[in-house]
């Protein structure tokens, strides 16, 4: 029982990271109808930026954090201009392939610059954690859970209660109508990419002290986050968060009770089960194409 509680806590912590990346997926998908296969690399690049600023250059953690997020915003903008925007009038297949190309480019550029050796990034807090009854609460996991909760609330407030959020929603629902109403669609898409890159980067920075900072972390996180979006219901914000948490818990328990080397396989198994039995996910609705 104690072990189960401990695993539950860990699972929620890891799941919160998947949820953040999944949120980035969903935001871009809703704005552009395209799945960004480089979303996981945003996390990886941000973690490496942290390593450069905080470890290699020895700058303060908070400053490195802000600089890394600023770097992600820049990367999001470049990504939009270089990968998505030129292809915006093409069908989804070329766009998907281009984002896959971008994912390979990002991961291997970092590999070429930094080498294959995984890097270590310290956590934000000096105190490693606190003991609460039978459960040990690691401070980094607590931070991840707290940040995710704050971001979920922020996200809700931003999209439902600000003018910019409403314009973004309008753009994702009907681009033509939005542009007829004077909303600059290209600006909205740009903002979406920047915001998603920052979200993905945040997830990477938060999870880096738990995992090693490595080239593979991007693709691993992206696969989990994608599985999370399918479990939750594709394109659904709440679904992405619930799906992320569920996947984190399943995976942690699977690793503890079934097999450690195949830990990364559970996400795939759950993904396939959902695809076969409930492809619309927990919250999703089946939508038919209009003839």
């Amino acid at each position, binding site marked *: 029982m104690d072990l189960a509680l401990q695993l539950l806590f860990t699972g929620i912590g890891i799941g919160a990271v998947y949820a953040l990346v999944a949120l980035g997926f969903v935001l871009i998908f809703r704005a552009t109808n395209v799945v960004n*296969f480089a979303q996981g690399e945003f996390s990886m690049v941000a973690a490496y930026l942290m390593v450069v600023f905080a470890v290699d250059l020895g700058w303060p953690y908070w400053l490195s954090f802000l600089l890394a997020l600023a770097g992600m915003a820049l990367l999001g903008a470049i990504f939009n201009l270089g990968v998505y925007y*030129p*292809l915006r009038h093409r069908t989804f297949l070329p766009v998907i*392939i281009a984002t896959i190309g971008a994912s*390979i480019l990002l991961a291997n550029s970092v590999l070429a610059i930094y080498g294959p050796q995984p890097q270590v990034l310290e956590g934000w807090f000096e105190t490693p954690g606190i003991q609460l009854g039978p459960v040990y609460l690691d401070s980094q996991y607590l931070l991840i859970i707290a940040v995710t909760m704050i971001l979920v609330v922020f996200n809700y407030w931003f999209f439902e209660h600000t003018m910019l959020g409403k314009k973004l929603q309008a753009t994702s629902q009907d681009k033509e109508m939005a542009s007829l109403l004077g909303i600059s669609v290209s600006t909205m898409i740009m903002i979406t990419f920047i915001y998603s890159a920052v979200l993905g980067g945040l997830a990477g920075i938060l999870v880096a002290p738990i995992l090693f900072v490595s080239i593979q972390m991007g693709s691993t996180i992206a696969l989990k986050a994608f599985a999370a979006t399918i479990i939750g219901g594709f394109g659904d914000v709440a679904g992405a968060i619930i799906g992320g948490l569920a996947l984190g818990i399943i995976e942690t328990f699977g690793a503890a009770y079934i097999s450690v080397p195949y830990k990364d396989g559970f996400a795939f198994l759950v993904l*396939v089960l959902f695809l076969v039995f409930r492809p619309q996910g927990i919250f999703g609705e089946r939508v038919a194409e209009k003839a």
Partner: protein
Amino acid sequence: MSAPSENMPIAVTAPHTKPLLLRHLPYFIGAAVVVTLAATMQFDGYIHNILMQAVTFAIAVFGLSVVLGLCGQINLAQAAFFGLGAYAVGIGTSDYHISYWLCLAGGCVIALMAGALLGMSTLRLGGHYLAMVTISFQQIVTLVMINTIWLTHGPDGVSNIGRPALFQSAQAYLAFCVAMLAIVGYVVWHLSDTHLGRAMRAVRDNELAAGVVGIDVFRTKVSAFALSAVLGGLAGGLFAGGFAYVSPDQFSFAESVVFLTMSLLGGVASPIGSAIGTGLLILIPEWLRFLKSVPGLYLALYGLSVILIIRYMPDGIWGFVNIATERWRAKARVRAAGPALHLAPASVGGAMVLEVKGLAKYFGGLKAVDDVDIEVRRGGVHALIGPNGSGKTTTLNVLSGLYKATAGRVVLDGTDVTDMPPHQRAAAGLGRTFQNIRLFRSMTALENVMIGAERPGNKLIGKGGEDALNERAMSALTFVGLGSRANELISSFSYGHQRLIEIARALAANPTLLLLDEPAAGLNSSEKLALHELLKRIAAQGLTILIIDHDMTLVSEAAQHITVLNFGRRIADGESMAVLRHPDVVSAYLGTE
């Protein structure tokens, strides 16, 4: 689904076409020469290895040209399928001393099954799912190769892999692989003009339209995916024999990306492009060896090339060459017009071709169609009219199976089609056109109509041979007045002509009932007159038409019987003139005081 066999002799094999194998003789002679060269020329070990790699990789890339080029579905796990074949041959011959041939066949079967299962679980959904699922599958295969040490030897890999007794020497084995390449290349090259290949291209261009012309979209996609996987498996098996050693890193996601880049660079649509792309991406890294000293640099460049190719050269090198040389190549001959179009609508059921009872379609709380009855009498033109938003197009979509009915029954010529998917309804004799034209845009007019003619259950094409299909398609195109432009691409036709091609595609299928969804929309007045003429000629051959249109002149002149919908319900039904004077109909269209 299969048509009852008819003992009708197929009339003519057109005299101008030589047998297929004879026409392709130059290819086989060329292939034989290359195989002989591979078997007799002396290469040093380095060149031999490069050739071996190029030949086996090219076969795997052919697989991608089927699934991605022909069918428009993505496969990011080609290296995993390649690995399944390679490990089957590796483990089988080295650890268990099983015959090479059995292992090769076994590897192909494993790859086929894996591909089919993966496809079946995912291909009903959109392309994003397939991309992610294939990446996941790729990761799982790599995990298994590394971790099931008792079977795969883990990261150490499998060595001492055997070759067949017949091709023991490296030289003979290379020649054997080249021969396999030639055979696979021929099959893939020829595939696009077969029934299956046309179906794949139709699915790639327009899934909805492919369904309503009688193509089983899901099965076609799964076939393409499984075929691609099997070619990956075969290539992997050949590769394992060639190098006698395999290890997990040779079949990682990075290799899948290399395959994808090869395919895109050369041109995804054709095996020639695949071969060019494979050759270049094997040779270029050999020329630029110094780049290999920095890990990751190569793949980073591959990633960049993928982005640039997609943006600036979407058809790859071969596509680029094709476009550049187009004006020097001889235009394809316009085929002789076929005999006058003959329509022989089946008549199995009673006087009613279509009986719709209590049909309903709800979208959440919205009752788009509610308790609608329609009876379409055999022969003649029946119109379904109603103001905007009255549920006409929804009704048509439910009738053709694109939407699933919430309630009600649809009986077509005595067959209950209520629960059938679109392609089975097409096989049962339903043809349709779309309000927003849905043609297969990368194909010629003739190919579009041939796909229509291929409808399962069409009895007017004999056994469905190429010549019979051609003839039928030419007749249909000539019938709508476009026979002389049969070999032009869809994009070169005007809007009105595209409408006509869509009608020809439906007519070539020899349907029992033809559904026309607003055929006059967007046509100018002279085109409308021509359309009216065309409808008369169709009806004269006894084919029943159910037409939706807003053009009251067209409807009142062409239709003998009219059903009127408003707010999803039927408000009037009967003989044309009476219905149009019906007070409810007048108020629905003009409003009431």
